[in-house]
């Protein structure tokens, strides 16, 4: 169904300029739409998918346009040299800007893009060799094999070929290993770091991708208009590009083309109609666009494209998005060597965490051996999850040390700890709800492949991608969710989502697995299945650290238990020992004596 629509669209694009009745004005308008679509495609990847935004994409369009304008007029080079310069320059500028701003909070990027857009705007207006406020006229047309694209209906084909290519690139990119990382930036950056995703790198990638597409658009613009001047690269144009992305549908690739079409058509009509109605030449489209944007953000934050798609889907009664089956891979992913049974894997030595005056974790020590399930239990607020976050590098330690396979990891980032083979789940489920279950789990295997951006854009990483997806499928089948591969993760029950998290942690191929309340929200039978999966993993030599409140589950499964209360270890031993330990009983049940004061005193004495 989707392919059919695409075919119709391409036929429409090809026939439009060839058809003799098409007004010249339409072709010009289509050219503007195509050029804007390129810029907006970049914004879709950056804003809708990556959760970052830029108000200054017009600056990159300007850099591309002025680069080729200068080179092809004053310097006398071919427009193709201009293309190269446009791409390189926008790459460099966006890379530097990304590096500088993206380790700070997300809102510094849009603020700095406003500043950069103004800087370039005033530079164009004042630099003599760029023609100051008059700009650069007389830009030669692009030539392909001696054929000049002078006429609007000729460059039209080049513009739309680039648009379709960019659509294809963007789809490939988002449907790949780097794409899953980019899609995690918006709502799961911390989680992604725990699976070894270098989130800052992918933020820069998304920003540079958007910048370079805008540079390409600028190159086309310069040779289509055959003149450039500062006014079309001002901040208002930058804002307009963002409006196109948001109104069209900031998370959908085709929403970029749709949004550009909508805004540019509307702009044209408003400029035609309003002066007749109100006898004014004021920029009424600014008021209209501003209000429409606010309404869209209030009532349809995904933009108009998804609404259109749903409408068509209901009308034709077919699902437009068919799940793609998991492709076959040439071989399975290689696995890490498992440590010898009984070898000490994790040594936690006197770790301590203070939040201001509160001691959340008070000098806790324990060891985990290969092939062992260790339970960490204690009442709510005992510091179990904080201990987890200390081991996995989410929080820095106040003091103490953590060694994994003999290596000190206390000072490492969660990303590096993941790379050593520590997989984890989260107390509050952190899946990407709009991604399929399969893709969520494949994100866990991020570190087991190294496909780069270029390979992904060109879609030449098929085998590696197939390996990752096969691995994700294998882990999902292992935990009993083989029937839900293509379901959106957000549609699963909370219990199932917890199991997806376990599959994602397993996809990392960990030596040590840290599970934070995996059985919460599961039914009795599901708990039994989970227990058998976990003991199966133990038999393969996996070490597991488990935080859990279901005592029945914990006592049956674990080899060894550490009990915490108020940040302090109050007991340690086998499940049998713990069950009869008076201090533990007191912490859980409030002691034999009903008097609260006495029971707290007694516990203090036992520490």
């Amino acid at each position: 169904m989707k392919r059919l629509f695409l075919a119709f669209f391409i036929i429409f694009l090809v026939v439009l300029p060839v058809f003799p009745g098409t007004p010249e004005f339409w072709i010009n308008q289509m050219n503007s739409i195509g050029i804007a679509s390129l810029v907006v495609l970049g914004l879709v990847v950056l804003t809708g998918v990556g959760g970052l935004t830029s108000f200054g994409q017009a600056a990159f369009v300007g850099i591309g346009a002025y680069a080729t304008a200068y080179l092809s007029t004053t310097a006398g080079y071919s427009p193709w040299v201009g293309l190269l310069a446009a791409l390189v320059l926008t790459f460099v500028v966006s890379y530097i800007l990304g590096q500088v701003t993206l380790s700070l909070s997300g809102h510094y990027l849009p603020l700095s893009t406003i500043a950069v857009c103004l800087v370039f705007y005033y530079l164009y207006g004042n630099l003599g060799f760029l023609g100051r406020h008059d700009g650069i006229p007389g830009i030669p047309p692009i030539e392909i094999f001696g054929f000049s694209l002078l006429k609007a209906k000729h460059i039209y084909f080049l513009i739309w070929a680039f648009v379709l290519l960019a659509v294809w690139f963007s789809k490939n990119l988002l449907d790949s290993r780097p794409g899953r990382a980019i899609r995690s930036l918006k709502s799961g950056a911390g989680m992604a770091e725990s699976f070894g995703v270098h989130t800052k790198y992918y933020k820069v990638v998304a920003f540079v991708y958007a910048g370079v597409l805008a540079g390409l658009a600028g190159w086309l613009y310069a040779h289509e208009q055959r003149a450039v001047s500062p006014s079309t690269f001002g901040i208002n144009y930058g804002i307009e590009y963002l409006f196109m992305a948001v109104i069209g549908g900031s998370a959908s690739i085709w929403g970029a083309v749709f949004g550009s079409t909508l805004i540019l058509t509307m702009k044209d009509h408003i400029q035609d109609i309003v002066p007749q109605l109100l006898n004014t030449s004021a920029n009424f489209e600014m008021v209209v666009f501003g209000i429409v944007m606010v309404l869209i953000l209030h009532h349809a934050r995904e933009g108009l494209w998804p609404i259109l798609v749903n409408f068509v889907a209901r009308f034709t009664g077919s699902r437009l998005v068919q799940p793609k089956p998991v492709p076959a891979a040439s071989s399975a992913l290689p696995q890490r060597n498992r440590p010898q049974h009984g070898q000490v894997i994790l040594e936690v030595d006197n770790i301590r965490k203070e939040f201001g005056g509160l001691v959340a974790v008070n000098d806790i020590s324990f060891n985990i051996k290969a092939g062992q399930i260790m339970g960490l239990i204690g009442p709510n607020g005992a510091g179990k999850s904080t201990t987890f976050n200390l081991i996995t590098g989410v929080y820095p330690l106040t003091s103490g040390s953590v060694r994994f396979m003999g290596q000190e990891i206390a000072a490492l980032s969660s990303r590096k700890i993941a790379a050593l083979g520590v997989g984890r789940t989260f107390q509050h489920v952190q899946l990407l709800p709009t991604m399929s279950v399969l893709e969520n789990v494949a994100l866990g295997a991020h570190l087991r492949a190294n496909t780069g951006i270029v390979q992904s854009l060109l879609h030449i990483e098929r085998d590696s991608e197939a390996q990752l997806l096969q691995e994700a499928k294998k882990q999902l089948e292992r935990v009993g969710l083989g029937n839900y591969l293509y379901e959106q993760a957000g549609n699963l029950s909370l219990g199932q989502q917890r199991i997806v998290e376990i599959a994602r942690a397993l996809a990392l191929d960990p030596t040590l697995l840290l599970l934070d309340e995996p059985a919460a929200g599961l039914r009795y039978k599901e708990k039994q299945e989970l227990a058998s999966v976990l003991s199966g993993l133990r038999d393969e030599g996996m070490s597991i650290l488990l935080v859990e409140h279901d005592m029945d589950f914990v006592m049956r499964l674990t080899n060894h238990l550490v009990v915490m209360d108020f940040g302090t270890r109050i007991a340690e031993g086998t499940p049998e020992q713990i069950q009869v330990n008076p201090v533990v009983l007191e912490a859980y049940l409030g002691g034999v004596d009903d008097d609260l004061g006495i029971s707290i005193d007694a516990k203090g004495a036992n520490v």
Partner: protein
Amino acid sequence: MANVQALLLFYLSKEKKQKMDWSIAKILMQDGLVTGVIYALMAVSLVLVFVVTRIIFIAQGEFVTFGALTFAIMADGGKPGTIWLLPMFGVALFLKELYFVHKGKDRKTLLKSLGVFIVYPLFLLWAVPVVLATDPSLWVKAFLTLLLVVPLGPMLYRLAYEPVAEHSVLTLLIVSIAVHYALVGLGLVFFGAEGWLVSEPFFDGTVEIASLTWTYQSLFVIGMTVAIIGSLWLFFGKTLYGRALRATAVNRRGARLVGIGTSMSGHLTFFLTALVGALSGIMIVSFITITYETGFMIGLKGFVGAIIGGLVSYPLAAFGAIAIGIIEAFTTFWASDYKEVIVFGIVIPVLLLRSILVKHEEDEE
């Protein structure tokens, strides 16, 4: 923006090949200080809005524009278009209120809404021309300006931000840029494209301080800024509402749990920020020609200052903004054509420094 004295000196220096010396530097500093304190007001209210509501209020500068142009048109003896803006906002809000009542909201608030959204704007629509016909003093005109412009702040919050108040910083930021865009468009519709300058000052005359000539008007601006910042400090330190806003800034959920609503703090913040914006506009239009777009640039320069303070520190933001004013005055002297390039270009090294100094910053979703 043109720093008048600095620009004058720049042209003089071109003719007489005058070099920078201490006397020129002092004049430039003085010039930069006067615009710098306006930027400082912007920076402080931007930080205020951000910490309380998480909104990066890009449209702050439009309140400067609206204040400046409403005042300038009145000072010129005209009738500002802004008197229509308030009824427009009011009608939109009242219709929205009616819709909510239709959907089952309590009717009791309807009378209050009628008063605030319909009666008040219509009263001003009638009263402002009547008062203006008596040819009142500049002070009365400034007061009328505040009556017309400041209510737009809370109204804007209710219209644009309140329905998405709990969404991400990113969403709020995009709402802000949309609001900015719409307000600039409205500014053009209501005020036209020409620039305005109020030549008649609140105070006439000059005084000699530190071997520099100061106009009373510039001392008035500096004094007002100090007074505004001082009263904000008193408001936050001593009053219940001020403390409520501070509580919201520290912990939104906690503040809600003890009964400080997001809605109340939002309306109050936007009232304050509109007040500061309109006052800044009234003050600055006697130094600088203001067009419908100038406010945005003034607001952005406040932003550069606020960014120096990391969008959280009031004193750093204020000092950063004053520094921007002074740097602007000096660049006007040295390289007039490139002063905007330099002033906005400062953002990059500032952010670089911040990202080196601040090791880890949590993104708030």
